[in-house]
C-alpha cells in the first residue's frame, strides 16, 4: 500500500485500519490484535510498514522503497500530510540528533545503511544540520564492518563508535544496574532515535528497542543473567536514556527468528518491514509476537517453551518502570 499525495492522511489511516482488521480476519497476524478505532488516550501506537517489493529483483534494498516505507510509517505514527511534517514535530534545530544503530550482526543483520540514510535525509529536511546528526554504536570497527563509513569531521553526518570517545567517568544507576554511559549519548546528542534490528536473542528471548540500549553502557556483559531481567528495564530507566530516546524505528527488513543475536543466515527471514513507535515496550511486545509467529511457521517451539520468554518486557511495563505498555488492549497497531 503506497501513499498517494492527493489522499488526505485521515482517509489513508482509515484504509490502513480497515486493512488491519482485514488482516486479522484473514488470520495473517493471528498473534496480533489490531485496533479498529483511532488511537485512544492511554494507548500506544505501533506502526508496521511492509513492502513485499522492497528488494526488487536483487538482495539489496531499494533505497526509494525504503524511503517510502519510512515516510508511510512516520506519517501514520506522528500525523502529517507530508513526509516532512512528522519529523518537524519530532526534532527542532539546532538540536543534535543521534541514531543508535545496531551493528553486532555485521553486514548480514544490522541496521540497514539505506534506512539510516533515509532517516538522515528526513532529519536534514526538517532543519537538522548534517554535522549535528551522529550515527553511533559501541564500536567503530563494527560500524565499518556493517558498511557504515566512519566520519568524525566536516559538515557531514557523523558516524563513529563509543570506542572513539569513551564513557563518562561517573556511574549512573537504577535498580540493579550501575553503568557508565557512552559520551556520544551524554555529550553529542540532545535526543536520539533508536534504530535496532528485530532479532531472536539466546539470552533475553528477543532483542529490539529496549535491548539496543545495552550498546550505550560500558558493562553490558554484567547484565545478561536471568534472561537480562530486570536489567534491560533498569538500563532503560537510566535518566539520559529514558529522556533522550524520542522514537524507535526498528529495522525488520531482515530479521532473525532463532540463533540471535549473532548473524546466522539459516535463521534470517526477509520480513521487509519497519516497526515504528514512541513506546519501546509496545514495540518490543509486537516484535516478540512477530518472531513467535515466524517460529511457529517454522515448526519451532515458542520462546516460553525454550525457557527464554522475554520477561523483561513485562518488567519494563510494570509499576516500578512504566517505560510503556505490553497490554495488547492498549496497543494501537497500524499496518501500512
Amino acid at each position, binding site marked *: 500500500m503506497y501513499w498517494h499525495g492527493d489522499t488526505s492522511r485521515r482517509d489513508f489511516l482509515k484504509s490502513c485500519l480497515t486493512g488491519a482488521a482485514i488482516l486479522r480476519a484473514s488470520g495473517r497476524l493471528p498473534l496480533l490484535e489490531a485496533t479498529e478505532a483511532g488511537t485512544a488516550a492511554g494507548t500506544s501506537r505501533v506502526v508496521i510498514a511492509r513492502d513485499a517489493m522492497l528488494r526488487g529483483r536483487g538482495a539489496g534494498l531499494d533505497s526509494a522503497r525504503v524511503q517510502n516505507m519510512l515516510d508511510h510509517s512516520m506519517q501514520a505514527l506522528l500525523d502529517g500530510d507530508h513526509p516532512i511534517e512528522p519529523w518537524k514535530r519530532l526534532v527542532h534545530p539546532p538540536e543534535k540528533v543521534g541514531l543508535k544503530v545496531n551493528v553486532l550482526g555485521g553486514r548480514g543483520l544490522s541496521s540497514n545503511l539505506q534506512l539510516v540514510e533515509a532517516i538522515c535525509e528526513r532529519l536534514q529536511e526538517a532543519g537538522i544540520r548534517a554535522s549535528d546528526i551522529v550515527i553511533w554504536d559501541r564500536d567503530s570497527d563494527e560500524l565499518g564492518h556493517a558498511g557504515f563509513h566512519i566520519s568524525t*569531521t566536516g559538515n557531514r553526518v557523523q558516524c563513529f563508535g563509543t570506542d572513539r570517545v569513551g564513557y*563518562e567517568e561517573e556511574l549512573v544507576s537504577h535498580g540493579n544496574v550501575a553503568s557508565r554511559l557512552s559520551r556520544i549519548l551524554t*555529550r553529542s546528542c540532545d535526543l536520539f532515535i533508536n534504530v535496532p534490528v528485530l532479532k531472536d536473542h539466546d539470552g533475553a528471548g528477543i532483542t529490539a528497542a529496549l535491548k539496543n540500549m545495552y550498546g550505550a553502557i560500558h558493562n553490558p556483559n554484567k547484565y545478561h543473567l536471568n534472561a537480562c531481567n530486570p536489567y534491560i528495564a533498569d538500563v532503560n530507566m537510566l535518566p539520559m536514556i529514558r529522556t533522550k530516546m524520542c522514537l524507535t524505528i526498528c529495522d525488520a527488513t531482515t530479521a532473525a527468528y532463532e540463533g540471535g543475536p549473532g548473524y546466522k543466515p539459516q535463521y534470517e527471514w526477509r520480513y521487509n518491514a519497519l516497526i515504528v513507535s514512541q513506546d519501546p515496550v509496545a514495540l518490543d511486545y509486537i516484535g516478540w509476537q512477530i518472531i513467535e509467529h515466524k517460529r511457529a511457521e517454522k515448526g519451532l517451539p515458542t520462546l516460553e517453551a525454550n525457557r527464554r520468554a522475554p520477561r523483561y518486557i513485562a518488567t519494563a511495563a510494570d509499576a516500578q518502570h512504566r517505560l510503556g505498555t505490553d497490554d495488547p488492549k492498549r496497543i494501537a497497531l497500524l499496518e501500512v
Partner: protein
Amino acid sequence: MSGGRKAAAGVNSVLGGARSALSSPLDRRSFLRCALVSGAALSIGDLARSQTAMPSWIGPPKQDESRFTVEAKFYQKLQTKKIKCKLCPRECTVGDRERGYCGVRENHGGTYYTLVHSRVCTAHIDPIEKKPLFHYLPGTLAFSLATAGCNVNCKFCQNWDISQVRPEQVPADYAPPKLIADLAKQHGCPTIAYTYSEPVIFSEYLMDTADAGHETGIRSVVVSNGYMQEEALKTAYGKMDAVKIDLKAFSESYYKDVVVGELKPVLEALVTLRTMGKWTEIVYLVVPTLNDSDSEFSNLARWIKTNLGLDVPLHFSQFHPEYLLKNLPITPVPTLERAKAIADAEGLHYVYIGNVPGHPAENTYCPKCRRMLVERVGLTAKQILIRKGGCPFCGQPIPGIWHA
C-alpha cells in the same frame, strides 16, 4: 578487597608516581630501560586516555587486539558455534561474537578466546603484606599486576574501574610473561602477585607468567575471590606458591545480592586448596550491617576450624565506602575486634585485623606462648623473629613460607 587499596591504571604506575605504599620508586627512564632490555616494546604513550567526549577530540587509536588474544583454556565447544565456559561456576554459554559475564573472554566462530593475555592495565611493586599475605616471605616485595575484568560484581569493589570494564575501555600495555618475570627479578621482587581485579579471568596469562617466573626463581601468588571450577583451580592455582582468598561473607544471600556470585563454590575451592597443600590465607571484608553479625562470624570460624584447620590465617578487614556502597560507614574497629574475638574463641590460631594501621592485631603471635613473632605497622614488617619456621621462644612450629 583484592590486594589492597585502589590501583592506579597504567604500567608506568610502577614508577613511583604512586603512593607511599611503594618501597622502591623508580624513575621512568630506569623502568623503560628495564623494559627494553627485556626485549619488549612498551608503548607508554598508548596509556594516555582520551579526556573528552567532544567529537572533535577523538581519542587515541585502538590497540592491536590480536597480540592479547589467545585461545582460552577451560571451555567446551557446543553446537551452532556456541561454547560453554568451564572456568568459573557461572558456566556462561556464549554465542558467536558474544562475551562471557567477565567481559574478557569472547567467542569467535565457536572458538573461545581470552582477550587479556599479556594485557596489563595496572602494575605496582607492593609489600607482600599489602595482599595481605602475612605468613609468606614477610618484608619482601611483590611485583603486582592485573588485567581488566572480573567474574563477579561486588558492590564494594575498590578497583571497579578496572574490574568492571571491558579490556578495550582501559589503557593497557603489552607485557608478556617473560617481561614480567624479568622485571620482578630486576626490581628485587621474589614474587609476582596477580591481584587488584580478579585473576580467575586471566588464568591463561597467570599460568604462563608463573611458569616464566619459576624458570628464573621468581615465585607467584594470587589474590582471588576463589570463584572457580575445580579443574581450572587445580590447574591454574596449582602453579601458585601461595593463595589469598577473599571470602566475602558466610551467607549465600550476601553472595547473591552484594557479590553477584555464590558462596558454596568458594568454600569448595578453599577445601580443594587445602587438599592440594597450597598455602592459603583468607580475608573477610567486614561490611557494616551486611555481613557483620556474630552468628556469621561464629559460623565462619567454625567452618574454617572443621574444614581447613586452626592454622589458616584469617584477616578481618576494614571496609571503606566505595563504588556502589558509598552510603555505608567505615567498619568500626570494635566490630573488627569482636569478629576477631569470636574467631579466637573458636580456637583459630592466626586471626588478624586488616586496614587499621598500628593495630596490635596486625602482628603475628605464637599461638602457644603468645610472644610477638612478627611486628607489623601498616604494610611494613618491622620485626621478624621466626626462626627455622618456628617460635624462637617456645619452639612452636609456625606454619607459613618464611624464607625464599
